[in-house]
């Protein structure tokens, strides 16, 4: 993976940001002034952390230039409470922003979230730990044992597997997975989940998430 390019003029904040990202196991390059980024340099950059208020070339100009030549994720650091600036940065192609003041964990979290992208698994074939779900043939295996699932149970499992590691709300499951005419009640959903858990056996990866709904545990918890 390429390095994280940090463009931040404030000495103290820049040093902190670099330190935090390095502690998170990322390699970091730090620029203290705004300037144009060569296309060749961009190939070695995995993500740019960009301050908007910079001496030299302003942050928004750097962003515009980067977007002309590359899709590298850009995370904007902004001290401003100004919505226009943020929306402008997003419209110019920034992927995300962090408003100062921020906690080190927050920044690392946002950088990681960007590096993980794309999160959504659109392919019909999903593998989560020992669980395999194949949307094309509508079959699922757990620890190489094929699961016998009803239509609703399969849809439920597939929906959770597509977003493994993330909670999915009960409302979403009711509206998008269960048949709204026949069985879309909270109780039916709980019944389906409990049956699914039984079929998955002791190593069931389906967790109840307080206040939200359910989550399929993935290997790497996010």
């Amino acid at each position, binding site marked *: 993976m390429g390095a994280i390019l940090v463009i931040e003029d404030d000495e103290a904040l820049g040093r902190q940001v670099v330190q935090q990202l390095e502690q998170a196991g990322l390699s970091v390059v730090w620029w203290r002034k705004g300037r144009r980024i060569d296309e060749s340099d961009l190939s070695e950059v995995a993500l740019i952390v960009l301050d908007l208020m910079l001496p030299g070339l302003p942050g928004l100009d750097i962003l515009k230039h980067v977007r002309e030549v590359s899709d590298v994720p850009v995370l904007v650091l902004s001290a401003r409470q100004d919505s226009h600036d943020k929306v402008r940065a997003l419209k110019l192609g920034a992927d995300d922003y962090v408003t100062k003041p921020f906690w080190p964990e927050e920044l690392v979290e*946002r950088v990681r979230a960007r590096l993980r992208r794309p999160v959504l698994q659109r392919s019909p074939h999903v593998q989560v730990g020992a669980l395999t779900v194949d949307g094309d043939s509508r079959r699922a295996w757990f620890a190489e044992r094929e699961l016998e699932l009803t239509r609703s149970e399969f849809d439920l499992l597939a929906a959770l597997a597509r977003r493994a590691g993330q909670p999915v709300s009960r409302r979403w499951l009711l509206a998008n997975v269960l048949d709204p005419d026949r069985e879309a009640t909270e109780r039916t959903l709980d019944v389906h989940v409990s049956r699914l858990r039984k079929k998955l056996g002791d190593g069931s990866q389906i967790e109840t998430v307080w206040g939200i709904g359910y989550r399929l545990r993935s290997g790497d918890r996010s």
Partner: protein
Amino acid sequence: MSLRWRLLLTAVGVVLPLLFLIVWGQRAVARRMTDDLVAAVVRLQFESPARDHCEDAFRSRKHVLVVPRPGGGPFRARGQEMRVDVFFAGPSGLTRAADAPVVAAPLLDAMRGGADASVARGQGNTRHMLVRLVPEDNPCTFALAVIPDVEAPLPIPFVAAPILVVLLAVLIGVAPLVRRIRALTMAVRAWRADGRRRPPADNSSDELGELSRAFRDASDAVAARERDLREFIENVSHDLATPLSVLQGHLSALAARHDPEVLRQAMNEAHYMGALFGSLAVTAKLEAGGAVEDEFDLNPVVARVVDRHRALARRLGVSLESAVPEGPVPVSGDLTFTEQALTNLVGNAVQHNREGGHAAVVLDIVGDEFTLRVLDDGPGITDAEVERVAQRGERGDAARSRHPAGRGLGLSIVARVAGVQKWELLLSRQEPSGLVAELRGALRVGHMAEAAAAYDVHESG
């Protein structure tokens, strides 16, 4: 130009043309009277000689009539007489007299049309009048009178007097108005220099009175706003000073001994101050009516806010989870406002909680609306507090948000942001304990298809 001069010039501008119109009308009437008089005298003098003695000697010479000038009036010198030369002409307009002027064709045309007398402009300063005396087969059919057109000079007093009167009236009428306007200006200037000197209200019922009352109302409104702001700043500085003192205490304790608990508390204070700063900026913008309408996706806003609170939640031992729909949730509103509102809800849910407690953020799409719920199983809030939050605008008191019992500024900002963006804020108690705060609003219409398409992907895949 001052008001006084402007009014004076306007008055002169109106009076002068009016005077000229009167003079012109008067002169036209006087001319008409002269003509009628001359025609009558000519007929009286020459009708029977023209009929009975129209021989060469009679019609070859010029006859002179002395006619008194009619009327008086300012434009005619009273009592003056004028000399009118009279010549005789046949039906074709031919005259015998050597010094007779040529009869103008329009005069003859008018007589042939059946008129008894007609007048036209003559040479020099004269008018020519043709008067029918006898039937047309006579060489003395018409008398041609040459009337001297002598006008009296423009009577200066007649013009000057009304102008002077009008100017005087304007000056007298305007003086008190100017005085009142000046007083009002001075009062407003004094108020600008010193906000405590309220401009006095003028009790009169005219427009100036109304203006002075409007100024007074405006000054009262500004004073009220200033008072609110002052109170707000006082409360906020109090609220900022407290955690800052605590933070300083923690830092000096940390300098003496490395205590993780002290460090944890210090970080919480810093987090609280950070949140307060955000609320302050948003409150200032809300007060200024500075909402910016934009379209954005709620999904990343939820992710950002939840990520921001993860560290705090971990430190406090509170589980913080969130769920969003797979596709985008497009809304229109102010991004900063929305993010701050959600920050306040999530901050409250995490901070007003206990170790082992839960906080959850759930974004859903229901029909053509989104619902954004923030739930916790902390102590919750009382109905009285819910009531207070619903009453927006109690800004001063709301700043006291620090104590667990009062989530004042935080929730009142959420309520105001919801109001500005035409969203609904519903607060309810969670059983057995805790709070559910739900924001509900319209999805951005233009993007409904896009959002629906995102769901289709999932339903088929």
